[in-house]
């Protein structure tokens, strides 16, 4: 069941409180969240509530679609092969136990997506056609509508679209629900739940973007994924891991469209302005492919391109169609410029850094059942750390693992008092929201503070403008400036629910920036030079073959170093 509202912008001063109870609350109805909801219902008769900031039919990073399932175990390969690949790609800073439990479920997740209606390319034998060793080709334009339709049909699942969770609510140290606001109606939600899954996605918008003008939101990751999931956990004292393993994507210049389809699909090589193929000089890991382009540009051999000129007209036409299924702006660029990929190479660039646990190891520190360190709270997909290269299928598997664990936990506590009677109070969250509204519209100040935050992060915490480099003194400067911005953000005002939502987005990004800066400062080495370089520690140092984890306590971020979970070992809380 889904609930729809009208989108009318009305001045608001007070909020009506709506209390909702559920067995499992899923924060975020993206890929991981929807898949988790469907899995939970296979293992429990309990109720599920998905709270989604937008509409689950087109929310999360797959809103525009996707062209491949990038995590799949090819016939003849073992799940361990994927673990080995991801471990090497991340220079060792991964949780092998999390990667293995994910890898073991990848192919079943792909099969389940196909059962839901996803079109997957087959080979002559009827198996999935592989793109390389780990990818299968799909038509994923409608992947979110397919997941949303399966959710809609399920009687155990209720969806609250356009409801933005702002804070977790705890009782005796355990997560027992959440506070939320409707992004369009003047309604405050007090949600009581017996278990909570954080599946909000990761964070964009912390750093100054590639195109800071009118097209500032033309970025790789959705500008609407604000790191809220991390931030609500950080504020509640959850342990986070590897935030310093930022992700920087290699993208088509301007449109910030994917490059993998060009590199893997038609074999386009990276070439510099002199026409030299440079990619072999830097290595082919995710970080190294990016490092090559950044270095060629920095040393004056840019602009860099993917060499597509010379492919056939048929290939070019296929690419135009392929991009319509995931990044239509690139097809629009090719058509309106007349510089289709068969006649012109495609310029490429690195994006601003993102925090995204589906690509790198950043996120909540979790057990193999995807329990966070806060009892009652699970994490999956881009929100969960330690397990990079999840992509679509890996996010599904993590959602499924968390859902099964939640179902088991709820069965064990069946009959115990739950629901509204034990709902922890959310009055402080309500008071905060109404405080922002009482102050009324504060002009463009929210936007201005966001721009200042992005500027600080760019200049002092290793953004594009600094070639992704940072150092201890700059990071200390960044921390002071972000703290000052946090104080100023507390005095912002909003006239309507959308303005209020944007204040919370800024607040969450600032919270995450604080933790990110602490992580960047703590890893005194350069392990992934494409993603972040410490100018004061430019070499890899194996003394840092460990996890940099953190917890916020009393408003201060404290860093913990944890030893690596070894091959064939398992970590549990």
């Amino acid at each position, binding site marked *: 069941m889904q609930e*729809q509202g*009208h*989108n*009318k*912008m009305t001045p608001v001063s007070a909020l009506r409180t709506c209390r909702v109870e559920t067995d499992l609350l899923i924060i975020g109805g993206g890929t991981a969240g929807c898949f988790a909801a469907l899995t939970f219902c296979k293992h429990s008769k309990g109720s599920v509530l998905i709270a989604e900031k*937008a*509409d689950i*039919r*087109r*929310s*999360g990073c797959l*809103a*525009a679609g996707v*062209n*491949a399932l990038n995590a799949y175990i090819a016939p003849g390969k073992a799940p361990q092969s994927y673990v080995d690949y991801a471990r090497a790609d991340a220079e060792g800073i991964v949780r092998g136990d999390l990667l293995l439990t994910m890898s073991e479920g990848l192919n079943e997740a792909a099969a389940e997506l196909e059962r839901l209606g996803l*079109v*997957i*390319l087959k080979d002559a034998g009827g198996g999935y*056609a592989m793109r390389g060793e780990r990818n299968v*080709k*799909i*038509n*994923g*334009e*409608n992947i979110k509508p397919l997941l949303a339709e399966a959710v809609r049909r399920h009687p155990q699942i209720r969806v609250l*679209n356009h409801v933005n969770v702002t804070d977790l609510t705890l009782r005796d140290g355990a997560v027992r629900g959440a506070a939320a606001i409707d*992004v369009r109606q003047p309604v405050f939600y007090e949600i009581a739940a017996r278990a909570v899954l954080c599946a909000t996605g990761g964070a964009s918008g912390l750093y100054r973007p590639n*195109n800071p003008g*009118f*097209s*500032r*939101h*033309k*970025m790789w990751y*959705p*500008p*609407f994924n604000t790191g809220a999931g991390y931030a609500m956990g950080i504020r509640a004292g959850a342990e986070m891991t590897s935030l310093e393993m930022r992700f920087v994507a290699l993208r088509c210049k*301007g*449109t910030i469209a994917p490059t993998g*389809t*060009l590199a*893997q*699909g038609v074999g386009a090589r990276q070439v510099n302005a002199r026409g030299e193929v440079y990619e072999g000089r830097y290595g082919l890991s995710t970080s190294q492919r990016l490092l090559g382009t950044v270095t060629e540009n920095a040393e004056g051999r840019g602009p860099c391109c993917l060499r597509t000129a010379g492919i056939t007209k048929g*290939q070019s*036409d*296929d*690419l135009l*169609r*392929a991009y*319509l*299924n995931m990044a*239509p*702006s690139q*097809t*629009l*660029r090719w*058509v*309106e*410029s007349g510089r289709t990929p068969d006649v012109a190479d495609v310029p490429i660039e690195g994006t601003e850094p993102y925090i995204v646990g589906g690509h790198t190891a950043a996120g909540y520190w979790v057990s193999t059942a995807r329990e966070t360190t806060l009892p009652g709270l699970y994490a999956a997909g881009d929100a969960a750390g330690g397990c990079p290269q999840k992509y679509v299928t890996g996010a599904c598997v993590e959602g499924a693992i968390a859902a099964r664990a939640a179902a088991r936990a709820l069965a064990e506590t069946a009959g115990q008092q739950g629901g509204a009677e034990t709902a922890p109070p959310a009055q402080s969250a309500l008071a905060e929201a109404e405080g922002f509204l009482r102050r009324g519209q504060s002009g463009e100040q929210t936007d201005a503070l966001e721009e200042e935050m992005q500027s600080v992060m760019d200049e002092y915490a290793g953004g594009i403008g600094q070639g992704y480099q940072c150092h201890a003194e700059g990071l200390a400067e960044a921390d002071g400036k972000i703290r000052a911005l946090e104080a100023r953000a507390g005095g912002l005002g909003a006239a309507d629910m959308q303005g209020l*939502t944007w204040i919370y987005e800024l607040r969450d990004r600032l919270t995450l920036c604080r933790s990110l800066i602490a992580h960047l400062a703590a890893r005194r080495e350069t392990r992934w030079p494409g993603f972040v370089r410490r100018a004061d520690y430019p070499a890899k140092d194996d003394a840092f073959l460990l996890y940099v984890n953190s917890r916020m306590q009393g408003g201060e971020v404290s860093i913990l170093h944890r030893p690596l979970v070894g091959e064939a070992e398992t970590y549990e809380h």
Partner: protein
Amino acid sequence: MSIEVDRAACTGCGRCADICPGSLLALDESGAAFIARPERCWGCASCVKECAAQAIALYLGEDIGGLGGRLTVRRDGPLLHWAVRLAGGETKVITVDGRDANRY
């Protein structure tokens, strides 16, 4: 990167306002869709695909080299007929069959 609404073609159904992942579209007092903050658009084209009246078009901002082309789409069963109307008036159509997987 953003979208524009053809107010004359808009039927006021509100589906674009529901589907936008950034909740950026709303209906104005006359019942037509509008985007108050076009610079906040991601360019995902969800609203373009949701609009049965083809009243919403995607365009590239001039700051990223946009040349004025407008991208709309018409759904016909499993087929998506994408149309790029160039600044000079010419229209180019690319049809994608939803039953076909990407081959690249």
